[in-house]
């Protein structure tokens, strides 16, 4: 089969809805359109049944009781609810929160807002491998710490933090642990009890479900976590998140979780093979290319590779048939360099062109081969054009040069 261009290699940004997910959603738009909160007629019951099944499906994927799932609009909202909700509910216990500098904006910004409101935030810095360790968390916990929020897997690097271990530390110290598991749920085994997680955010559109649907797991026993809601109204979702439920989205999210659970073993093996092929194909042909983040502690389908001495935007232009996400582009054009890559301590000439490849359920080997080929050709061409690379070949240390500003 001929390749269809462009090729989608950005599954960490979002995923297409799996046709099997769409199929179960469709009746809820037209026939089973009831409000799941309508208690006294068939339409409401039907919708409620769909939501109930979805709760079970999500619960099964993450090892939670269905009653512990709070529906939201996605991980941004889930993170906000978890972080701000805990901060407010437990403010009399303490006002110290621990997070990391390379979290998603949906965690960083709520924490920054809390900092403005007088909370004390500890910003952990990952090692050069992108990992936040349990030892770092243990060291940062204080008497007045009320929450640790550390993501399970990083969206830009695919690196997996020391999750069961961080959970253990938090349990020992009696501190609540929230984890933004948006990138981990459905891709690697996630069990809230085994990992000692008290709150967990997930989003449907990262796992072949629809956009605008997500959940927050909120532990009900040992300990029973309480939250101050952000959205007040009809008291839906145990009062933690009011608003008529997005039944179609929730039904899709449930089905998406079920598919991920049933196919995880097989799909992980398939993706690992493709991802490793991509890594190897690129790295073996490009001497200076490097993987960002701990290579053997990453999500199966994600890889982030730096191409030193090549600039990001020209790189994106050269591989325009491949939809990827670039860590960076020229700052002068007011495109921000990636704070995640900076957190790893990467030099500018390296951080300037890093590409995240996100393989997914529908990625084929053919597409991976095409990608390897395009990337290698593009980088070789751009190295040919690069004055920095020329200097390196001449043995000049480009970091020692005093560059003028312009």
């Amino acid at each position, binding site marked *: 089969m001929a390749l269809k261009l462009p090729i989608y290699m950005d599954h960490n940004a979002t995923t297409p809805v799996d046709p099997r997910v769409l*199929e179960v959603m469709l009746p809820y738009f037209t026939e089973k359109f009831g409000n799941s909160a309508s208690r006294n007629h068939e339409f409401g019951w039907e919708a409620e049944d769909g939501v109930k099944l979805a709760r079970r499906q999500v619960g099964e994927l993450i090892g939670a009781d269905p009653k512990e799932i709070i529906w939201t609009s996605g991980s941004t909202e889930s993170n906000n609810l978890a972080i701000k909700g805990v901060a407010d509910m437990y403010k009399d216990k303490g006002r110290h929160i621990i997070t990391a500098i390379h979290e998603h904006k949906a965690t960083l910004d709520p924490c920054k807002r809390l900092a403005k409101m007088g909370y004390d935030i500890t910003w952990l810095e990952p090692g050069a491998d992108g990992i936040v360790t349990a030892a770092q968390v243990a060291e940062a916990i204080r008497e007045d710490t009320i929450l640790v929020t550390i993501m399970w897997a990083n969206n830009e690097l695919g690196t997996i933090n020391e999750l069961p271990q961080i959970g253990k530390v938090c349990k020992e110290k009696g501190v609540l642990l929230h984890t933004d598991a948006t990138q981990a749920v459905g891709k690697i085994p996630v069990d809230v009890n085994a990992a000692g997680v008290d709150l967990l955010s997930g989003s449907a559109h990262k796992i072949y479900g629809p956009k605008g649907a997500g959940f927050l797991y909120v532990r009900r026993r040992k300990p029973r976590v309480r939250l101050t809601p952000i959205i007040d109204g009809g008291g839906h979702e145990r009062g933690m998140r009011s608003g008529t439920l997005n039944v179609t989205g929730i039904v899709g999210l449930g089905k998406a979780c079920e598919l991920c659970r049933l196919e995880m073993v097989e799909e992980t093996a398939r993706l690992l093979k493709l991802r490793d092929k991509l890594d190897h194909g690129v790295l073996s042909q490009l001497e200076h290319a490097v993987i960002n983040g701990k290579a053997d502690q990453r999500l199966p389908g994600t890889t982030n590779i730096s191409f030193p001495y090549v600039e990001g935007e020209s790189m994106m232009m050269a591989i325009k048939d491949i939809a990827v996400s670039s860590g960076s582009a020229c700052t002068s054009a007011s495109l921000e360099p990636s704070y995640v890559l900076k957190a790893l301590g990467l030099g500018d000439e390296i951080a*300037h062109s890093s590409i995240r490849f996100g393989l997914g359920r529908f990625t084929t080997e053919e597409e991976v081969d095409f990608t390897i080929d395009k990337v290698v050709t593009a980088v070789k061409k751009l190295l040919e054009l690069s*004055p920095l690379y020329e200097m390196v070949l001449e043995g000049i240390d480009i970091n020692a040069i005093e560059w003028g500003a312009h």
Partner: protein
Amino acid sequence: MSLYAEVGEEPQPRNDWALRIRAHENKPNTGVRIMAYSEKVLSHYETPRNVGSLDKNAKNVGTGIVGAPECGDVMKLQIQVDDSGKIVDAKFKTFGCGSAIASSSLATEWIKGRTLDEAMAIKNTEIVQELSLPPVKIHCSVLAEDAIKSAIHDYQEKNGLDHGDHDHN
């Protein structure tokens, strides 16, 4: 287009591209849009003119290097000048976006065959116009103008020529 019917009718096998391919059918394959580049930028980017290096130690060669890696752009532009003060060859290498590559490629094309004074007079606005650069890309053209001037200065300095008149600040 009825996605509904098609999806509902039969279960879709795994890894089935049908759905996506249908979604693509109605639109021409334009690739991924990163930024709207003009035809001319694309042409210079795809087949840059005068890529390479001249011997920077030669007396008749002037080298200009402008920009900085942390800004995401470094441009090296070199000129070879004959006895009559005419630029007979020009080469460039650029680390930067497509517009920066195009600007420097165009610059080398323009200065070849010109006198130093003529080359010195080239303004970045002419590059902007020729390549139809959008406002966020103007600085790429400024870089190219700076690179020309810097190469000329280097040549003049090497050869003990006065360039006070042409000094830009």
